[in-house]
Structure formats: C-alpha cells, structure tokens
C-alpha cells in the first residue's frame, strides 16, 4: 500500500516536473542554454569586477563559479517552489491529488536542470583549475542534503504564501540582499570578526562552505559544517512538511 502510494506520487511528480521544464523553455530560442547563460553572465561580471580586488585568491573564477552554480539553483528553486501551489490552483481545486506533489515537482524540475548544467560546468571548472580527487565525489551527498534543505524551506514559505501572498513578494525583495550577504563573490574572512556571528546565521553560508571545501579546496568539510548542514536540512524539511500538512486543508478556500 505504501509502496503503491510512493510509486504513484513519483509518477505524478515526474509528469509535472517534466511539464514544468518543457513549459519553462518552450517559447525561447536558446531554451535550456539559458540555465547555463544566467550564471555565466554573473561569472563574467564577477571576474571583471573582483579579479583585481581578490588578486590574492588563486583560481578566483573557479571560486566564484562554485558559489554561483549553487546560488542559482537555490534561487530558482525557491522562486518555483514558493509559487508552486498558487500556480496549480486550478488543478488543486478540481482533482483530488496529494498536494505535496506540486512543491516536490517544482523542486525536482530545478534539481534536474541543475544536474544537467553541471556537465558543461564541470568542464569549465576543470578549465579554471579544478582538481579531481576522491573528495570530488562528496559533491553527490552534498547536493542531496542541499536539495532537502531547499525543499524544506521552499515548502514552508510556499504553504504560507497561499494565505499571505506577501511571502512571495518578500522573497523577491530579499533574495538580492541574500545574494550579497552570502559569500559568493567574496571570501568570508573578508568580513570583520565582530560580524562573523551574524554572517554565520545565514544557512547558505554553511552550504557554500560545504561546496567550496569539496570543489575548491579539495578537502573534507569540517565536521562542524557537515553537522550544521545536515541538521538544517533535516529541521527545515520536517518543519516544512509539518506546516504543509497542517495548513493544506485551507488551500482550496484560499486559492
């Protein structure tokens, strides 16, 4: 019974995710290429603007690229998951389906897009001086943990967005701020010691550290980073699903 339920949910998630991907690039000439061009455009800006300032960082383009790929994934996923319930209002109101399907398929579509973009990005990273060691394989579990975190926080915000559309607007307002607040273009030790606690309150700081350790420094992430990132993923995922289940009964009357 449970197996059947999971299989059914998987088929639904797969179908809707595929639909999302198709629709997203349907009327554009470059289609999927945009998911590569977007971070690349930022990378070029970063290299022009910051290369002199961070001349002391070896392989700065690689440093920035690692941050950009995973920021872009987070940002895109949040945009999609937060609005996934509202965007599917007409389905939710007319067909009896497990509604968690909508945040999950939005997340799944973005995850697939990111994984596909990793193929060309890996060659670019190699060009910028990425060294492949056995540490590189750690990127797989790291992406998994990061995806869980993203789904959790997105579902949480998506649930409340149904009742207060301010949440979606709030995210659009805050995401550029979060972008600069997270060490993507710059090194975190650039921030004065007294503000470190403040910076470390940002969950993305820890995920960026995780990916940089693996792909840039070729080292095992510290146990502190591993524990913090896993714990945050677990907590946000649990809270996100709990709140979703608690408030889903109000979806139909608020969509």
């Amino acid at each position, binding site marked *: 019974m449970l197996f059947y339920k999971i299989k059914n949910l998987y*088929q*639904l998630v797969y*179908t*809707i995710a595929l*639909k999302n991907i*198709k*629709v997203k690039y*349907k*009327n554009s000439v470059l289609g999927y290429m945009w998911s590569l061009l977007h971070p690349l455009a930022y990378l070029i800006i970063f290299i022009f603007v910051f290369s002199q300032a961070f001349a002391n960082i070896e392989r700065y383009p690689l440093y920035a690229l690692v941050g950009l790929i995973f920021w872009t994934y987070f940002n895109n996923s949040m945009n999609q998951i937060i609005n996934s319930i509202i965007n*599917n209002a*007409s*389905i*939710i*109101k*007319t*067909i*009896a*389906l497990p509604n968690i399907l909508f945040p999950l398929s939005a997340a799944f579509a973005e995850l697939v897009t990111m994984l596909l973009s990793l193929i060309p990005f890996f060659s670019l990273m190699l060009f910028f001086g990425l060294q492949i060691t056995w540490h590189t394989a750690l990127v797989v579990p790291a992406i998994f943990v990061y995806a869980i975190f993203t789904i959790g926080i997105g579902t949480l915000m998506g649930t409340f967005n149904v*009742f*207060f559309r*301010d949440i979606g607007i709030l995210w659009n307002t805050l995401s550029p701020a979060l972008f600069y607040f997270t060490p993507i273009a710059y090194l975190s030790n650039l921030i004065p010691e007294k503000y470190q606690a403040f910076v470390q309150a940002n969950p993305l700081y820890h995920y960026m550290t995780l990916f940089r350790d693996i792909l840039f420094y070729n080292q095992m992430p510290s146990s502190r980073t591993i524990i913090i990132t896993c714990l945050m993923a677990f907590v946000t995922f649990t809270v996100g699903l709990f709140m979703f289940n608690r*408030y889903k*009964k*109000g979806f*139909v*009357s*608020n969509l």
Partner: protein
Amino acid sequence: MIIMNEDFVISVRDLYVNFWISGTGVNSFKDAVMLFGRQRALQKKQVLKGLNLDIKKGECFALMGKNGSGKSTLLRTLAGIITPEKGSIQIRGTVAPLLAIGAGLEHELSGYDNIRIMGTLIGLRGKELKESVQTIKNFSELSHDDLSMQIKRYSAGMMARLAFSISVCRIPDILIVDEALSVGDQGFQEKCAHRINEMKAAGTTIIYVSHSLTELKRICTRGACLENGRIAKIGPIDEVGMFYEQSFQ
C-alpha cells in the same frame, strides 16, 4: 450507528465542512505572525453544516440550490478534494469529477502533451494511458494536426472538446458534473449527453449540478435542494424542482 445499505454508493452522515480563510491587509498578516502558535491564524467559515445524503447505485441525482448554498463544496468533498471537518463519507467505487472544464490544461503545450499530463493526473498509467490517447482523439474529433499544436491556439470550443474528452475517456463508478455541459457547439453537446447516457447504461452513478431545471429533469430522476449548507428537500426530481422554484418567490 448507521449500517450502509448495499444499494447505496454514496452515504454521507452529519457532514461538516469548513473554509479556512485568511484575512487580507496588514492587520491579518500581523495577527498571523503575532499569534503564531497561540491562536488559529485562519478564520473558520462553516459551509456544510451537518449534511446527510444517500445516493443509490446507478441513479442520476440532481443537486440544486442558490448560489453559495454549498453545492460545489459538497461536490468537492465527495470528490476527495476537500477534507471534511466532521462526519463520515462512504463511497464505493471510483469517482470522476467534472468540476471545471479546462482546469489544469497547459496552454503552452500540445494537445498530445496535455492528454498525457491530464491522463496521469486523473489516474491513468502505462498501457491504459497509451490507449486513452486514441479514445480521446476519436471522441474529441480533433485531428492529428490539431492535437500536435500548442493548445493556446485552440478556439474555446476545441479546448472544451479536449478537456471534456479527457475527463470522460474512461467510465467511472461515480461521475460528478458541475454545470460542465454548456460547452462546445451543438453537435458536441449532443455527444456529451450521449456519453453520459452511455455511462448511465453502464451503471455509473451520476451527480449533476445545474441551475437549468429542464436539463436536470431530462437526465435525473431524484434530487435534492441545498439551503445554507444543509439538505432542505430531497425526493423525486419534480417535487424538488418545484421546491427550488418556489424558493425564489
């Protein structure tokens, strides 16, 4: 304790359904944040208030009532879209809801893509899904060229044909129709009526909501009139129809 009669496919007992409504504006948002965890952030509005209903197998049941009396909410609850607050619903068999024509269609994609997506959503899988493409194509009378085209280029009637054909491509045990048949041209309307009769003949139970008494009388034998979240009158279609008409005088 009520024992469910063998003849009934739907038995509803003491059904309460609420709407959970969030207010709008700064105050309601502030309240939701401030009261978080201490008090309910959403306000409750009772829509169905202790409703009882039995529907026999194979019958065609009409549902009437003024706007806002709870018809659509009852249909959605029967279809499993809304979870009731209290009470019991027993349903025997598969339910196919026809609540809004065209809901869920993705305008940027082709007719074929939409058949596969909507088919999956209504529960078709694998072989059944593949076979249904042909059934839907035949029933909708849309050509291969039409179905290969993005549906945003369809006329309203073509869109309705596609949507209705997907919804009725398999014969369910219970069909729920919410004023959906007033779409398409005359030929297609007759086809829809014919398909409903086919389902009726196959033993499908039909619950039909409409404001057109003539239409209801043509299809249904028994019916109920809803008033303020409860059943005000239930019985043969003529009696209930009369009751409904009198309520406007």
